């Protein structure tokens, strides 16, 4: 029945698939980690509001509006375009042997040759995820009863103490399901970075497919791997939710 399925292709390219899987997982982890970190600040930044006093305008101009613009841009343009923009335009501006803003000289050359695509891919996925995670944080924070904020402030806690001790701990539980979804989206979207030559799972499949002109085996195989990881992630989130429900 399955005789048409040429497992030998998978076996032959096994090391490449394994390497690709490792890269895919690394990209996802980096994206989730930095996306959450940056997303937290952006999410709070988007709704930061000082009603009066000397901080009113600085907060609005330097925190609230930039956060809103960032989120709007990264949610409103295709990730694929963002990857190309970052890889071919932004990163060369920052890392360049002659005129890089951040890194120059031999080190820039080495970095670009060895890790160029990975840096771009990880950066694009993190920046993109941050915008979506920021919205998750914003929604989570705004879902907490206003009375919680008022009670904390009425005791003399400042804005940051209130966020850290009262609002975020309560919001986090509500944010777990959408955060899990975002991790799953990120894992799947990481396949797009194969376009800039980064050897992750989709790239491995494309290589194997190209060599044999067989498309079922490699793409079905990586579909299966993606599916396994997403199911695992869903289950992990489910367990976490249960754990937090009891506490």
């Amino acid at each position, binding site marked *: 029945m399955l005789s048409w399925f040429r497992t030998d292709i998978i076996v032959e390219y096994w090391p490449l698939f394994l390497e690709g899987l490792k890269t895919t997982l690394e990209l996802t982890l980096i994206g989730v980690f930095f996306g959450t970190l940056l997303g937290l600040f952006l999410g709070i930044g988007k709704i930061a509001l000082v*009603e*009066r*006093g*000397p901080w009113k305008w600085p907060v609005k101009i330097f925190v609230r509006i930039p956060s809103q613009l960032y989120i709007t841009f990264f949610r409103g343009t295709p990730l694929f375009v963002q990857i190309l923009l970052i890889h071919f335009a932004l990163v060369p501006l920052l890392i360049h042997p002659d005129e890089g803003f951040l890194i120059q000289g031999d080190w820039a050359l080495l970095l670009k040759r060895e890790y160029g695509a990975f840096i771009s891919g990880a950066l694009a996925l993190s920046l993109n995820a941050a915008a979506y995670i920021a919205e998750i944080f914003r929604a989570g924070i705004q879902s907490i*009863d206003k*009375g*919680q904020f*008022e*009670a*904390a*402030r*009425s*005791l*003399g*806690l*400042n804005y940051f*103490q209130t966020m850290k*001790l*009262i609002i975020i*701990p*309560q919001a986090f539980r509500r944010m777990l399901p959408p955060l899990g979804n975002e991790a799953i989206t990120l894992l799947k979207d990481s396949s797009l970075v194969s376009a800039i030559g980064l050897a992750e799972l989709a790239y491995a499949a494309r290589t194997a497919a190209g060599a044999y002109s067989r498309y079922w085996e490699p793409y079905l195989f990586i579909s299966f791997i993606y599916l396994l990881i997403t199911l695992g992630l869903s289950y992990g989130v489910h367990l976490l939710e249960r754990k937090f429900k009891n506490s």
Partner: protein
Amino acid sequence: MIQVKGLQKYFGKKQVLKDINCEINDNEVVCVIGPSGSGKSTFLRCLNALEVAQGGEILVDQFKVTDPETDLNLLRSHVGMVFQRFNLFPHMTALENICLAPISVKKMTRQKAEEKARELLKRVGLSEKENSYPHELSGGQQQRVAIARALAMDPQLLLFDEPTSALDPEMVGEVLDVIKSLAHGGKTMVVVTHEMGFAKQVCDRVFFMDAGQIIEIGTPQQIFGDATNERTRSFLSKIL
């Protein structure tokens, strides 16, 4: 303790406080009564700047509440507030709720803060509930914890925003008893309430508010016995 001059507050275009003027003395207990929507709660919330006033001046102790330069966190650490809906922190036990502000605002050691919190829980009659989470407590018990939480900061001024309005009738008494025990114990108190019996019994002066203004100020005897203003009389005749 409190001086309010020409206080104005708008929600959008709607003016909810129109030129409020009053003074409240040290250790005085004042009840604010009036129909719903008269601005009682808004007035109270202006006193610790939970609502930002758009006009006028508020002086609480040495703090100019309405001055943008005032350190509101410092002001609020001297002003306790008890809310209609308790607003306990649901992810913390009763003890943790009470210890939070002394530890993170006053930088008290955990040990000292817990000692004090236990004392306060005893005072509100909930010693055995220190490890309970808010959802495990009845409404009356939650509100008593909330009062203990406000007291933990040793406030000179206590604000009560309809502290018994969200309670089942059988629990109103236990909360009012706690508030009564605090009255005239060296704290200034402003209580927005619909409990006329409580107002009559406990407070030094009653403020009657209607349509964003303080219409009448007097002792409970004056207000409940022989109000001069027509609106006060009509309000009281409806609810008494």
